[in-house]
């Protein structure tokens, strides 16, 4: 039995919302990062699903690029966390408010 396309999309939306909640509520920088990855992933899923629905592989291409960008982002982001950790001995975002007014 085939699965309706909207199920994929709804699943993606749910994942996105979960990711969003995580990104907004977690204090651990890396956890926030993970949540963002989750959101990206949800978006990827949506793209793949529409790609499938429309029979157009352009969506897959976008997913590919999202993955690549995610890799870059992870590299830079984690490097930043290492740097911040060296500086502040924590990556709790509540306590690395370096740009606080």
């Amino acid at each position: 039995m085939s699965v309706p396309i909207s199920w994929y999309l709804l699943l993606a939306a749910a994942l996105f919302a979960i990711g969003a909640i995580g990104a907004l509520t977690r204090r651990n920088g890396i956890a926030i990062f993970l949540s963002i990855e989750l959101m990206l992933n949800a978006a990827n899923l949506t793209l793949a699903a529409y790609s499938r629905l429309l029979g157009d592989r352009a969506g897959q291409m976008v997913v590919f690029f999202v993955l690549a960008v995610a890799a870059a982002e992870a590299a830079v982001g984690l490097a930043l966390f290492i740097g911040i950790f060296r500086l502040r001995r924590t990556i709790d975002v509540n306590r690395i408010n370096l740009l606080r007014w």
Partner: protein
Amino acid sequence: MDALSLLWWIPALPFLGAAVNGLLVRNGQKGLVTFVGLAAPGASMLLGLTAIWQYATGLAPEPLRQAVYSWTVGEMSIDVAFRLDPLSAVMTFVVTVVGFLIHVYSVGYMGREEGYRRYFSFLNLFMGAMLLLVLGSNFLVMFVGWEGVGLCSYLLIGYYFDQEFPPEAGKKAFVVNRIGDFAFLVGMLALFASFGTLEFGEITERVLAAPEIAKAPYVFGLSLAGFVTLCLFIGAMGKSAQIPLYVWLPDAMAGPTPVSALIHAATMVTAGVYMVVRTNVLYQLAPEISLFVAGIGAATAIFAATIGLAQNDIKKVLAYSTVSQLGYMFLAAGVGAYVAAIFHLATHAFFKALLFLGSGSVIHAMGGEQDMQKMGGLRKHLPLTYPTYLIATLAIAGIPPLAGFFSKDEILAGAFAGHHHLIWGVGILTAGLTACYMFRSVYLTFHGSFRGSHEQEHHLHESPKVMTVPLVLLALGAVTAGWIGIPTGLWEMAGFADHNVLHHFLSPVIATLPGVDTGHHLSHSTELLLMLVSVAVALGGWLVAKRLWGGERGLAADRTFAERLPFVQRLLANKYYVDELYDRVIVRPLAGLARGCWKIVDTLLIDGALHVGAFVTELTGDLGRFSTTGNIRNYALYFFAGVLLLFWWMIF
């Protein structure tokens, strides 16, 4: 030698001398300095005398105008031009002769000064500027000279710049003069705007051709002539130290004494008189202003004379005497006796210069002491200075047949003839006062016994030749200068042809306007009576002085006066507190206003508004700053909220 085509060299030579001394010669080369410093005005004097001779003997067209070059272009085309006519000839004569003599005197007087070179440079510069003033063919050149002499006055008053007071006095002189200059400038503007030219000749011609233009109402209910003459007279007030702008002149005595003689007695201060006479055609068209001039002159004359009575500084006495005499000249010009004004100017130049140089000699002998209270009995020590000083005193007091008598008498006659009896009265009173305070100075200085320290007494000595020779020459002038203007009445009464040389010589420059009453027609008997009255008053003044200060009396009269009328004495000694008045009424409020402008308008209002603006900006930023919690999660929330809004907007 055709001196007339070399006219412009007359002012140029002293300028050259000033430049050479100022820029090329070094401090140590005293001989060279002396040579240049004397050669320049000397050559200028020779040139000037030659030119005057050639002019007076009719070798030149009259009046002579020599344009050197064009100063500006276009609508306002003004030439740098010189003019030789009777008036400027008289002035040139006075300036060059008296000036040269004072230069010579200075060699002795200033011989040991450190700033010898500077002094001569400035003095030459002054000569140049003064000659520019008197020889200028238009108001612009005259104004250049006018300001130039002001500058030299400033520099020379402040010659002893390393002391506190002299530069201060120089500044005061310059600033007060500037106040007058401002009016002068406005007058010039009005003239130029109305006539399109600043040439004396052209203006006179046009006014004579169409007096109604000058009489037309201009501003403040004044006619054009009225406005212009008022402005010019205010200028003259500044330069010639008339009430209310006379305050700088007594202070100007801070300069070296020859400077006082040359600038603040003989020449520069008379520039105002010269200008009034120069523009007599306009004054004649503005009788109300003329009367004003006469009134100011009379008031200044008596006012200064009263102050002079109570001064103890010998130079101060002479300074107030100068103010007083200048008042006399304006009195003359105001009542229409222009020739008398110039006459008095010329004679005054000689005897006042002589007085100053004499006092300089005294000061020289006293080692710099100027206080008459410390002098006395000097005639023994200064055998040449005393007689010359006495001659000058007699001259200024109006004792015939010395110079002052004739000129002063002509002024008083003019006032009386113009039915200005009150002014005549003031004049005659002033004459008495003049004789009184001048003889007071003579008695206090030369008579009685010496009141100074022993050291001073020990050093008392007559001045060197280089100083005394000019004194003698000037004394000669003080005696004889009046003879060129022996009144027509006297000649006639004596049955001679009218040999009032000056009168005839100057008459071309005194405009005769139709409908303006210039009739100074006194009967010979009245004239004689007036003469006798004035001589009597002068002698009276002398006698009073002799009674009070003569012989060994010394300062007793002053002390008595101070005890009897302490208030009046203080008032006179403090010059009626005018300086203090000006300070309180004008200077301080103005400074307060300035400070207010700075601190309140600039700093508080304008910058304050600016800073308020900046503060509001900063405050906004400060408030907005709190949104940057530095907490990434908050930013994420804002971001997310934004996404939601965007989402909302896109969908609905």
